[in-house]
């Protein structure tokens, strides 16, 4: 579920024709910030706000560099990924952090807590899907992803929109970290490792065009479900786990291949 929340953000990023590979680091950083604030005795609400706020700030840094300094997002987020990751290691040394009671499941019972987490993720997904369709902001994101110059001529500010998408991505990474945090009584600083790959792959498999402008959040949900089930499927069919990565790679390649062939058809 937490990965789904992050995937919403990454889908918006890709639709606006950018990429963010720092979300795994953002996620870890937010998880630990939430964990540390909670462990220091502050109320859960403060931790949640701290995590989402920290995420939004990290997103804002990416946003400034990409939107206003016009730097390529792949390199910017590569640099911030390394920076946050190592800063976290320097700070936490990889310790497993135990959380106080009352954090898990937001202090509710397990079934209620699980329902809350799943509901939040789905409400967000549906909300974001509706916003992408029914709010001007959503249409702006599609517009700048399709053609930033045409968007500018149509009076949309591509810089502000891009910046906003990155901030939103960070905030969603923070929220995802919180949703992950409440699922167990301990938090590990490497909890976001590999999240960027997982979510980008889900978006691409779900039909979000890497060239921007096309894709739906419903597709992202399907992509997420498909990829998240490669591993359980191996388990269920009693297959050895070491094929997982190879299969994931093939699924990504097939998805991008299908997309490539489709857009080629469109051109003719």
């Amino acid at each position, binding site marked *: 579920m937490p990965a789904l929340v992050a995937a919403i953000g990454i889908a918006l990023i890709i639709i606006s024709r950018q990429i963010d590979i720092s979300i795994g680091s953002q996620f870890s950083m937010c998880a630990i910030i939430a964990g540390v604030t909670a462990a220091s005795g502050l109320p859960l609400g403060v931790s949640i706000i701290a995590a989402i706020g920290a995420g939004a700030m990290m997103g804002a840094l990416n946003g400034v560099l990409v939107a206003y300094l016009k730097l390529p997002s792949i390199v910017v987020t590569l640099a911030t990924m390394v920076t946050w990751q190592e800063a976290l290691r320097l700070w936490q040394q990889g*310790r497993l952090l135990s959380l106080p009671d009352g954090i898990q499941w937001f202090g509710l019972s397990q079934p209620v807590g699980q329902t809350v987490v799943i509901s939040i993720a789905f409400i967000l997904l549906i909300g974001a899907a509706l916003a992408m369709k029914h709010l001007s902001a959503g249409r702006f994101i599609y517009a700048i992803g399709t053609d930033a110059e045409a968007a500018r001529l149509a009076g949309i500010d591509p810089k502000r929109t891009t910046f906003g998408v990155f901030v939103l991505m960070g905030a969603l990474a923070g929220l995802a970290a919180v949703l992950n945090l409440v699922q167990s009584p301990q938090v*590990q600083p490497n*909890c976001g490792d590999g999240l960027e790959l997982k979510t980008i792959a889900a978006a691409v498999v779900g039909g979000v065009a890497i060239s921007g402008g096309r894709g739906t959040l419903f597709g992202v949900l399907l992509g997420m479900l498909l990829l998240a089930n490669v591993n*359980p499927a191996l388990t269920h069919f*009693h297959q050895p786990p070491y094929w997982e990565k190879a299969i994931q790679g093939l699924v990504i390649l097939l998805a991008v291949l299908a997309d490539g062939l489709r857009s080629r058809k469109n051109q003719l």
Partner: protein
Amino acid sequence: MKRKSFIVSLLILAALPLASCKKSEPKGNLTIALLPKSKGNQYFVTCEKGARAAAAELGAELLFDGPINSDPAKQNEIVENWITDGVDVIVAACENKDSISTALRKAQEAGIKVVTYDADAQPDARSFFVNQATAQGIGEQLIDTAAALTGGEGEFAIITGTLTAANLNEWIKFIKVRQAEKYPNMKLVDTKPCDDQKDKAQQEATNLLSAHPNLKAIIGVCSPSVPGAAEAIKQAGKAGAVKLVGLGLPSENSAYVKEGVTQAVILWNVEELGYLSVMAGAALAKGELAPGATEFTAGKLGKMKVEGDNVILGRPFVFTKENIDQFDF
């Protein structure tokens, strides 16, 4: 302009080794370097604690450095840096047996004493191995404990760290051997990697529980896997129905053990392992421990047994509901 900067920089690069001047460090005491498999791991942080205590007693300087990700080349790099530093003793826990041995042999050639702990290198690459328990001992202890809990029958699964970790694979091998010999009614249904991520261990355990409804036990062989699997069992409402045993630190597992989700955590006294390893290294450097010895005095631990080239810490310890509160690591 371009050409000029090119030449200048080439000159500088060429001048680097020429300009080298060996700094003579005032070296009163021993410098002991402790290499963990990975630095961020609570297990090795605890080892370091014991090692620091030993170093303080000896008046020695302790360097502690290790890899932070699973890049197999990192341990070698660190060892080679220590050779450059001219440390006196290297105490190493080996991630990749064969590759680290290459570097440790170089250290020995450079006159550095080498002791291994936790996971051994090739025998010719070190003088002694501080054996907290043999791979065989660990494997057998795990399966024996699991078998005792399940009555020696039913399906069980293993959650490991990464598929490439050498010592984990060694332990799994001995689990399989022992099970085939002694517990024919038990069946290993799956081995899953958790990439040293607790959250992934939780997912894997959840998958295992639903894929194998008759699962009786899970064995976690790396430390993040045990709390991860415990949370999965707890959330699935199968606490007690599916037994969980694993290697891990008491502090990370005490809540689950007390709740009865995790039945047993197996570990040696990690702090003492760090302490003993440093003591053995120092003794080796001072000549108090030489090949052929059968015992040596390790500070506050007193006389420790030496078997061949293994310094023995003792059998692994089983932490259960009854005794887990007595340990603070």
